[in-house]
């Protein structure tokens, strides 16, 4: 091959890789635009990607959330074990919500679609989305086994050569509280894979490709080498850390020992607490997903996610620990603990590369599933009015941990990639009044850089009638920890407006005349607070984010005239 032919081939492979990423991005955008569940279209709780014929992920959309992305990467292999590629036909779509074959709880549907070019199966598209209702108890920790948590869909064909499997859809329609949304979402997942297949075929025609395999090897080779090059820059050694969750019955310890090797980073979770009888358990794929995400943000944030760039991050998760829940343990709100894993990984990495990590943040999403009406209050309460039936979940976040050179982010999701809904939209789909949603002063952990500030939310129904919350909140008994002398973030609080506290996990009723107040945690600080720029302290005091008293007590800054 002449130098120039070689150069042209090299340039063309780069263009093709770029195009492949554009194809999966289109796949994700179509899903967002056609999905019915607010969890997908408003919150962005989804992922999309393309896989080679062996089920290795080649590219994934940057749109999406880490828990889905990395666990979906494992999922396609399970589909191929049951339905080998040679058995698949154009127009087939396969689906599951098995927490152990997909992304960790029944609310996540994964759809897999073969891509054919000139009659040959050349690759596979997959996507995952969090649907709003899958029957069962509904999203929350109360189930004692996965069977209570909703309908369980094994890997089945939902479309056979373009024809819907009506038997399957019949089951879906009767088993969900929101059958239209569920069916619409499944159609949407299949349609976005169809569109991606069409786009891939166009691309292969344009570049005169017979197979994706050479491109896959090119992508994997560059990604793997680049990831190893980043690992090589790290000091070698074994670094340990732990983090605590409030748990359901009792506090849960997550322990990790991270070995930075020449060609891999291995994490051993020995020492982690055992399983819970409630739905906070984490299936192993979800543990790997969030642990890898945490490592990747620090070590190789610019390298795109694919099979080869994720391969050097290896996890040993002991059997019987809460991060390796076996079937049929309940797993509905596995995110409560899963979201703490990036903080745990950064605790380990802090010992190796202290300049590249953040302090701990609120991390676990606070997504209150709220429910009202007959299923809470019964069909009638004599002469007392009952609120109209509603079922809603919002996604809200506390503060993120302080960064090395910047404060943490106030009320912003991390590690989750989801968005919240406007209060006005929430109040239009449910008979709720959100009386307060604002930042919580003094909740950002003090430090040279300050933790992101948490928020306070106050929920009631119209007319202050009773409703219920299926609580799955964390960081109440165990606040985010600061680093290098930075102080802890403010802990969360779950209380009634009338004064008493709620349990942090589980189904509870907010009675007539009362309201639910959530105080979301703040991120932790980094570095000695007394070394913080006094002007930054004064600005925080002026903005009401730090009290005059805390400015003096924690930062040793006198702000006698906060208006000045």
């Amino acid at each position, binding site marked *: 091959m002449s130098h*120039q032919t070689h150069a042209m081939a*090299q340039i063309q492979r780069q263009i093709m890789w770029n*195009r492949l990423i554009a194809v999966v991005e289109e796949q994700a*955008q179509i899903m967002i635009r056609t999905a019915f569940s607010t969890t997908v*279209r408003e919150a962005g709780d989804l992922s999309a990607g393309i896989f080679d014929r062996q089920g290795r992920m080649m590219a994934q959309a940057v749109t999406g959330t880490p828990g889905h992305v990395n666990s979906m990467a494992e999922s396609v292999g399970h589909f191929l074990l049951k339905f080998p590629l040679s058995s698949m036909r154009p127009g087939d779509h396969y689906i599951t919500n098995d927490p152990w074959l997909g992304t960790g709880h029944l609310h996540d549907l994964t759809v897999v679609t073969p891509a054919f070019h000139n009659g040959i199966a050349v690759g596979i598209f997959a996507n995952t989305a969090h649907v709003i209702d899958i029957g069962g108890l509904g999203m929350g920790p109360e189930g004692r086994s996965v069977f209570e948590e909703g309908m369980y869909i094994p890997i089945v064909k939902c479309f056979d050569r373009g024809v819907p499997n009506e038997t399957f859809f019949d089951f879906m329609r009767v088993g969900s509280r929101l059958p*239209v949304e569920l069916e619409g979402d499944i159609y949407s997942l299949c349609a976005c894979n169809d569109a991606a297949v069409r786009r891939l075929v166009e691309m292969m025609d344009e570049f005169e490709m017979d197979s994706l395999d050479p491109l896959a090897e090119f992508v994997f080779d560059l990604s793997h080498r*680049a990831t190893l090059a980043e690992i090589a820059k790290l000091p070698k050694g074994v670094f340990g850390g732990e983090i605590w969750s409030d748990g359901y019955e009792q506090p849960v310890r997550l322990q990790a020992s991270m070995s930075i090797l020449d060609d891999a980073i291995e994490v051993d979770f020995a020492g982690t607490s055992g399983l819970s009888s409630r739905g906070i358990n984490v299936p192993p794929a979800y543990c790997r997903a969030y642990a890898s995400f945490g490592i990747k943000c620090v070590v190789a944030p610019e390298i795109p996610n694919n099979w080869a760039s994720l391969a050097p991050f290896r996890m040993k998760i002991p059997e019987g620990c809460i991060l390796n829940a076996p079937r049929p343990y309940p797993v509905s709100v596995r995110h409560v603990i899963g979201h703490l894993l990036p903080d745990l990984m950064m605790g380990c990495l802090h010992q190796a590369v202290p300049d590249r990590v953040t302090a701990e943040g609120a991390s676990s999403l606070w997504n209150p599933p709220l429910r009202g009406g007959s299923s809470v209050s019964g069909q009638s309460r004599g002469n007392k009015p009952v609120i109209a039936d509603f079922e809603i979940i919002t996604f809200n976040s506390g503060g993120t941990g302080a960064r090395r050179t910047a404060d943490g*982010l106030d009320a912003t999701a991390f590690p989750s990639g989801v968005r919240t809904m406007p209060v006005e939209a929430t109040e239009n789909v449910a008979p709720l009044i959100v*009386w*307060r949603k604002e930042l919580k002063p003094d909740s950002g952990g003090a430090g040279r850089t300050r933790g992101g500030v948490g928020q306070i939310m106050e929920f009631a129904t119209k007319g202050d009638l009773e409703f219920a919350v299926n609580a799955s909140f964390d960081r109440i008994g165990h606040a985010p920890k600061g680093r290098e002398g930075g102080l802890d973030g403010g802990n969360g609080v779950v209380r009634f407006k009338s004064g008493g506290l709620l349990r942090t996990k589980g189904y509870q009723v907010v009675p007539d005349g009362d309201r639910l107040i959530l105080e979301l945690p703040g991120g932790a600080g980094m570095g000695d607070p007394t070394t913080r720029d006094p002007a930054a302290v004064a600005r925080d005091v002026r903005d009401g984010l730090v009290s005059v008293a805390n400015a003096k007590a924690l930062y040793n800054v006198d702000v006698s005239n906060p208006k000045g």
Partner: protein
Amino acid sequence: MQASRLAVDIGGTFTDLALEHQGGRTTIKVLTTPAAPEQGVLDGVRAILTAAGVAAGEIGLIVHGTTLATNAIIERKGAKTALLTTEGFRDVIAMGNESRYDQYDLDIVLPRPLVPRYLRLPVPERLDNTGKVLRPLDEAAVRALIPTLRAEGVEAIAVGFLHAFVNPDHERRVRAILAEELPDVPVSISSEVSPEMREWERFSTTVANAYVQPMMARYLRRLEADLRTQGLNAPLFLMMSGGGLTTIDTACRFPIRLVESGPAGGAIFSAHIARQCGLENVLSFDMGGTTAKICLIDAFKPQTARTFEVARVGRFRKGSGLPLRIPVIEMVEIGAGGGSIAHVDSLGRIGVGPESAGADPGPACYGRGGTHPAVTDANLSLGRYDPATFAGGSMTLDTAAAHDALLADVGSKLALTAEMAGLAVIEMVDENMANAARVHAIESGKTYEGRTLIAFGGGGPVHACRVAEKIGITRVLVPSGAGVGSAIGFLRAPVGYEVVRSLYQRFSRFDVQAVNGLLVSMRDEAIAAVRPGSFGAPLSEVRTAYMRYVGQGHEIPVPLPTKILGPDDVADIRAAYDREYARFYDRPVPGSDVEIMSYAVVVATIADAAEETRASGTLFVPEVAPSRTQPVRDTVTGEVSDWGIYPRASLPVGARIQGPAIVTEDETSTLIGPAWSATVDTLGYLELTREAA
């Protein structure tokens, strides 16, 4: 016989002017004078009047667009602004949607709100989603804020209350109190600036309006006075982001509607050309020094939207700017222009932009100290420019400097020669633009099949053929006047105004009476805004409903009849929705109810029909020969061959050129790829056609 008309477009670097007089057109560019922009305008006006030989008194209409409002937000040079908002919600504009626009970047920077927290002042009051008062407005609490507003020297005030778009009473009452106490401070209320659901977007828009209002009002009044003293007594209109023109009074009240007027002018320019040439479906492609803008135009109307982001902090990333909910011409803007800088990442992948060399130092080949390779350097390395005649010979390009930069930043890292590095950079930037265009089509439910690409801006005609190939377009049009397209577009814009209101209803319980009442009041408001500038011209009215399946997230626009709706119309509206939905997403969802989120009413003057259109029929085809040839490297094959060079000014109507060739003019070069041919139509436009493969 139309009076002479003058358009002025203030951009970041240049102020463009276009004057149309007795069927002729004069255009010039002068430098923008950022400290006192009206100075550059006046200089330009004097120059263009002289050049065209037209007296000030002969000008019958002046249309103006400016980036001043946008720049004030980007550079944070607006007024000291306070936000009065519902108690419990003072942080809405700081929290946004609680998300990060980049999942992996731990050092991510989020946009800072325009109003700091200490000036976001809570007011006790609360409405529910139907507009019912849950907590009455505490007027004493509002008055108690006055000393703070005075002491802080607040120059503008925004008022944003939850659900105020349903019931504006509390906001209006607060404005009245402020008018009594602080008569000199302008007040923007959310129920007027952006009366739609979603508090973050509405408050953000209202705050931005207040933030730019004092400065824009001062500037516009000053400009008007200065033009009058020059003897220009013609009415002055302002170009809005939605593509319509408005009066100074309206512009002073809602200056946020003036952002992005330049790009809107470009889209209208394209729409006008599409009409002249009878092209139903086009893609407008405007590539300048820093960005490329892509806009879909169907039936001679640019696609419109109601949301927009300004002042993105994250490399043009979606979600990294401040949201604005105003009527806008919808376009995608990506960081791909002649100045965009190429680099190689840690994986050995070539990236282009969004960092730009700008005008200073500019690409390496400008010889002004730029050392990183820009797209212009890559084009030069492929032989696409003649270094001696670039920009009409106003500067000589340094080919060696371009090669050095390409080799240092790209070639040496990938074992490529400077020329092949240049090829890689061009292929990548073309690919990026094509990918952005593809995603945009998907988001709009459109395809590129049968579409014509209209290319303008300095870079558009250079990259048009290859981008068209990548998205499956086989026809490209390069109009004349492409360097000042936005200013020409201003002269084609109707005087118009768009009113948008939210009124949430399930379609199964469609309240015809309420909708009729709303639409009539919206029409009246729009007419009131248009009438001062329409001078009795006939007006058109377009009504649109934004609808979706109950439970779905993205509404689609559905046209409504312009009349009082009766019960019989309901079924027709539902049928129109189903048609539109199927067009966007192939498959309607059986058995689902539909909900209506909001309505839009646009009132505008009817576009001047007496326009010059392209003559059809067989043309006499004169022989044309290239003025010379130049070795150019083709990006598809990598091979170098001699391409013919044709100065555009020398091409007669009907001339036909077989690619590969380059047509040169001062402002740009049109590349005619090897698979393409070009003809010059009766308007002097170049029409490029790709031969069937």
